[in-house]
């Protein structure tokens, strides 16, 4: 009985995140267009695109092996699995007995690894270049992510995200200055990992400096749809992670209709605020030169280290 409940919760949360994630992308696109006084694509355009891509026939290079086919599937599965390790509406992750912070980072890394190897598989220069760039940035962003997560974990004494959220909900609005540094560092990681503008441009396939788009340039049809969808889920996941760690106010501590409705409203409002901030960052900054990106991520790493140091000092 207990197990059935856990599995149902995990499925529900995973599918819910899958359903909502494209809306976040559409929202950011729409708001960006509004800032440029354009009308922009409809809010649901990302869903239409995904539906269209899923109906198409996959076109694959003749030299592609099974690695190329497995890449998007593993990436998608990793994204979906990661959603079950993060508390969204309830102060407990569905599969929190399966793993905590380190499991989450590992699963995300597995997805990235699968996609980067798949990009190398056809032997085209663009894929290899994109994969190498993605891994370069990830190699710097991942420690920054770990440091930020560890800072939050130190306060509750547990690496389990559910326990972290429960601890900060118990304390009420407790606040430690290290949170500010961890939040700033993790926000830079969010920008870098989701390929937003100072690091990468999500809106174009035609730049020599592109990172994520170069890696998935050769995918078409359902393969491409899986990659796009998983990237959207990953973006929503990072935002939810920041919400859990730094502004957990409103997350339900028991499964009951009332608190759940409040939690859903609070979560949606907080995600919207993050979407607005991301839109503003994307609209007011120019894309960095590729060789300057490590400097930016180094700032995130520095802030993460600082957050951890201030916890101890």
């Amino acid at each position, binding site marked *: 009985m207990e197990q059935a409940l856990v599995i149902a919760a995990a499925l529900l949360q995973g599918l819910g995140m899958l359903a909502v994630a494209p809306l976040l992308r559409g929202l950011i696109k729409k708001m960006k267009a509004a800032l440029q006084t354009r009308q922009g694509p409809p809010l649901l355009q990302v869903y239409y695109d995904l539906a269209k891509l899923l109906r198409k026939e996959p076109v694959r290079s003749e030299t592609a092996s099974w690695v190329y086919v497995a890449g998007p599937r593993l990436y998608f599965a990793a994204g979906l699995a990661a959603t079950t390790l993060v508390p969204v509406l309830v102060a407990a992750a569905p599969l929190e007995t399966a793993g905590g912070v380190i499991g989450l980072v590992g699963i995300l890394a597995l997805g990235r690894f699968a996609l980067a190897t798949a990009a190398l598989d056809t032997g085209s220069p663009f894929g290899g270049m994109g994969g190498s760039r993605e891994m370069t940035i990830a190699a710097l962003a991942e420690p920054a992510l770990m440091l930020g997560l560890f800072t939050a974990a130190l306060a509750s004494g547990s690496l389990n995200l559910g326990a972290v959220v429960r601890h900060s909900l118990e304390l009420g609005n407790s606040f430690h*200055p290290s949170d500010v540094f961890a939040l*700033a560092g993790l926000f830079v990681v969010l920008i870098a990992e989701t390929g937003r503008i100072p690091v990468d441009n999500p809106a174009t396939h035609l730049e020599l400096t592109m990172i994520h788009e170069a890696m998935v340039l050769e995918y078409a049809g359902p393969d491409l749809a899986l990659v796009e969808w998983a990237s959207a889920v990953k973006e929503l996941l990072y935002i939810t992670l920041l919400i859990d760690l730094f502004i957990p106010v409103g997350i339900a501590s028991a499964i009951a209709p009332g608190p759940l409705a409040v939690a859903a409203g609070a979560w949606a409002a907080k995600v919207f605020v993050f979407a607005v901030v991301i839109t503003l960052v994307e609209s007011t900054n120019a894309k960095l030169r590729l060789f300057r990106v490590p*400097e*930016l991520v*180094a*700032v995130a790493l*520095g*802030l993460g280290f*600082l957050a951890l140091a201030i916890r101890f000092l």
Partner: protein
Amino acid sequence: MTPDLVILCAAGMLVSVYLMVGQKALFTTIRLYAGQSLLLAAMAAMMAVADARPHLFVMAGMTAVLKGFAIPLFLMRVIDRIGIHREIEPFLNVPASLLACLGLTVVGYRVSTGFPEGDVGVTHHILGMGLSTMLIGLFLMVTRRKAITQILALLTVENAIFLVALGITSGMPLVVELGIFFDVILAVLVLGVLVRRIVARFESMDVSRLSKLKG
């Protein structure tokens, strides 16, 4: 609630200094300085309400207007006139600078211990952040080449001293604060003129050229 907000503002100031170290566009650096000053003003206003000391409101208002708007606008105009927008190459590259600043922060935080309320008190955090901000400001001043960045570093150090004064003594007397304010304004005006003279003479803001005056 107020101590939390005060610490939040102080931490925001330290983050803004880190961002100053992390990037090179002059306009962004000036905006970061403006944001930092506004945080300081908000902090002074909150302390004025919490401790019921109305003269801090005057300080908060002057900080917001002068350091938050007037001085940044003046510096932006100077940059516009001379048309130089980037710190080309600091004496130390960004990752190395960041590492040095991390060390400075640890030092600043480590020495500001030993208060009666221990590690949880406001004083510990504010003094730690104030000292760290000041050390990083001094560090910026010696590692950057452009005269404008050096002015901004000087102003950051001044902000940090104000932060420490707020955190420990809960504000200096109004007369002293006013004196400091006029000093700062005068310094910025004189340095602004100086920068334009340097640019007119050397066609660059690089202060390291000042050591080769002869020939």
